[in-house]
């Protein structure tokens, strides 16, 4: 009998083209997603070496990182952004790579667009020059971020040279209580295992609370695997996955779809397969989470108080905590709930899907953004935007005083016009709270879309369970 294998083992084995003597594998890549920031030097490298893109039919490009989220129809002003976009457009034209143009309705954040178009499918290896490629692991695919040399490598060879990762299981048993979401699960996981907890591993998420999530929730969880230090995150494909995929533009059709599903059903981890590391959480104990520091493990329930560096186990930790509190402008012992905020950002590849916008709108409906607070809602793609408008969510948001924007990475990172100014405090549904991530001097609190909407209407960090 063959040895019991994990989902990761099966994905890996199915893509090994050749195993080299030192254990490095030539790993086949099924899907390569390309965006404007990490690809220019890769295409330049191809040109200099006189190489072609090996599989244009496995590659797709879109712009997301540095496009403005308003007024784009009248052109893009920022010269460096414009140059990166123009360069991508020239590269895809020269090399024949499929491309979704800026003004196309399918344009959006690459990690929203891929699953939405049925381009990211179970059983695949998926790469992109962006660390949050882990998002696509929610489909039951091995998906990870790569550097510019590797982007060129995949363009030229459709493979990567890789060594296998270790297997880690994060099992979330039980049922989430009302008010807690996928975002709270992953923040709680990172709080538990730390930002280095997944180092060297690929995390498979399983358990009742994970299976109960819709695809948007699963993508939120896998998205932040990288913040837990893991190479990638995975969730076994099941009927929820197959229902999501069926009928999407680039998904297999008719008989092919049935054949694909038959294969996909063989992917989940075999009973008795070995994990190098296992962590178990009880979903029933997860309450809405908020980050208080400048890395994603500095997170706690909204009911918590800002920790005291004096209680840290050693001097190095104490200094680190003190530095975080100084940067964040927080005082030990202060209740997190009630902390005044200046900006709310609902968006990013973590939380900008239609389900996220519905959750935020459900909190915002009939209320108004607090005085002095600026709140942005940035759909993950043009199609999410259209769907939200069809459901009237845009009207709920704009009536409540939120700004309703064009799709893109927006305020997730300070690379386009949407930025925090120094000292501004932001309740954000994105994934990174590093110093300056949303703009120099900006202070980020990571939380779920419902919690972000609650913060917007009260003007402070708020336990959303008190509002609904």
């Amino acid at each position: 009998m063959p040895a019991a294998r994990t989902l990761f083992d099966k994905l890996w084995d199915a893509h090994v083209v050749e195993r080299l003597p030192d254990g490095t594998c030539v790993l086949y890549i099924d899907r390569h997603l390309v965006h404007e920031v990490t690809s220019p030097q890769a295409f330049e490298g191809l040109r200099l070496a006189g190489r072609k893109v090996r599989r244009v039919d496995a590659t797709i490009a879109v712009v997301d990182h540095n496009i403005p989220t308003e007024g784009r129809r009248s052109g893009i002003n920022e010269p460096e952004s414009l140059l990166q976009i123009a360069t991508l457009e020239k590269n895809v034209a020269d090399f024949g790579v499929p491309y979704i143009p800026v003004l196309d309705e399918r344009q959006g954040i690459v990690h929203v667009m891929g699953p939405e178009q049925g381009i990211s499918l179970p059983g695949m290896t998926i790469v992109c020059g962006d660390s949050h490629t882990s998002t696509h692991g929610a489909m039951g695919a091995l998906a990870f971020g790569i550097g510019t040399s590797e982007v060129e490598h995949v363009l030229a060879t459709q493979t990567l040279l890789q060594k296998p990762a270790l297997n880690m299981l994060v099992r979330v048993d039980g049922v989430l209580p009302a008010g807690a979401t996928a975002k709270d699960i992953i923040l709680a996981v990172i709080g538990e295992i730390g930002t280095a907890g997944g180092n060297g591993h690929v995390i498979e998420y399983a358990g009742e609370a994970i299976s109960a999530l819709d695809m948007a929730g699963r993508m939120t969880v896998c998205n932040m695997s990288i913040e837990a230090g893991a190479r990638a995150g995975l969730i076994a494909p099941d009927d929820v996955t197959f229902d999501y995929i069926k009928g999407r533009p680039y998904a297999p059709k008719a008989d092919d779809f049935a054949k694909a599903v038959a294969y996909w059903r063989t992917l989940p981890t075999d009973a008795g397969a070995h994990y190098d590391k296992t962590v178990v959480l009880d979903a029933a104990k997860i309450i809405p989470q908020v980050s208080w520091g400048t890395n994603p493990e500095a997170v706690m329930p909204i009911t918590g108080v800002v920790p005291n560096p004096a209680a840290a186990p050693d001097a190095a930790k104490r200094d680190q905590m003190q530095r975080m509190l100084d940067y964040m402008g927080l005082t030990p012992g202060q209740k997190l709930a009630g902390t005044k905020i200046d900006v709310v950002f609902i968006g990013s590849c973590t939380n900008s899907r239609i389900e996220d916008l519905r959750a935020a709108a459900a909190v915002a409906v009939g209320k108004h953004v607090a005085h002095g607070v600026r709140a942005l809602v940035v759909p993950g793609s043009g199609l999410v935007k259209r769907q939200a408008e069809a459901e009237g969510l845009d009207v709920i948001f704009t009536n409540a005083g939120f700004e309703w924007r064009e799709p893109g990475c927006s305020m997730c990172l300070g690379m386009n016009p949407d930025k925090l100014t120094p000292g501004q405090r932001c309740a954000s549904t994105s994934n990174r709270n590093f110093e300056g991530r949303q703009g120099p001097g900006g202070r980020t609190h990571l939380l779920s879309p419902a919690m972000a909407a609650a913060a917007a209407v009260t003007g402070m960090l708020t336990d959303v369970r008190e509002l609904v």
Partner: protein
Amino acid sequence: MDKFTVLTGVAAPLNIANIDTDKIIPARFLKTIKRTGLGKNLFANMRYAEDGAEKPEFVLNQPKYRHAEILVAGENFGCGSSREHAPWALLDFGIRCVIAPSFADIFHGNCFKNGILPVVLPADVCEQLLADAELGTNARLSVDLARQMVVRPDGQEIHFEVDAFRKHCLLNGLDDIGLTLAHVAAIDTYETNEPAWKPVIAGV
């Protein structure tokens, strides 16, 4: 990637420890769309005054080192971020070999990926090579990768260690892509065996 066999050239002395990637190429030059052209901003903060004028005391601004191909540096060279712009900047300036007592890990790997040979030698040996480099254009160093030898101007030979696989790649000018393309038959076979239901991206 160009082959690296024997490199004989002027070595520039840069005896500073912990030269980080931000010193090699400051962050403000990363918004480029090219990997070439970074050479003019190599070590920009050390090399130019605020008004953009060259600082005459900086080693690479001195006439005899303007065409240096080898750098002899201090310990922990290349620490900091993983940006590939650092080796790109060195290469674009014309540096193909850096000799130092130690290197930061990721930078060390990135050098090989980009055709630069990082040579690790004990600190006292580096001191001797720094002294050689001080002699300028009259004192060329020679780095022979096949024999794993640095040859001093007086003919003395110093052995260095290098990973066998990486040596093979550099000697043959195989970047990872070149190396992988040696397996192209296996990739072809893999693609032939793909299931027929697997969709392609077409008609976007």
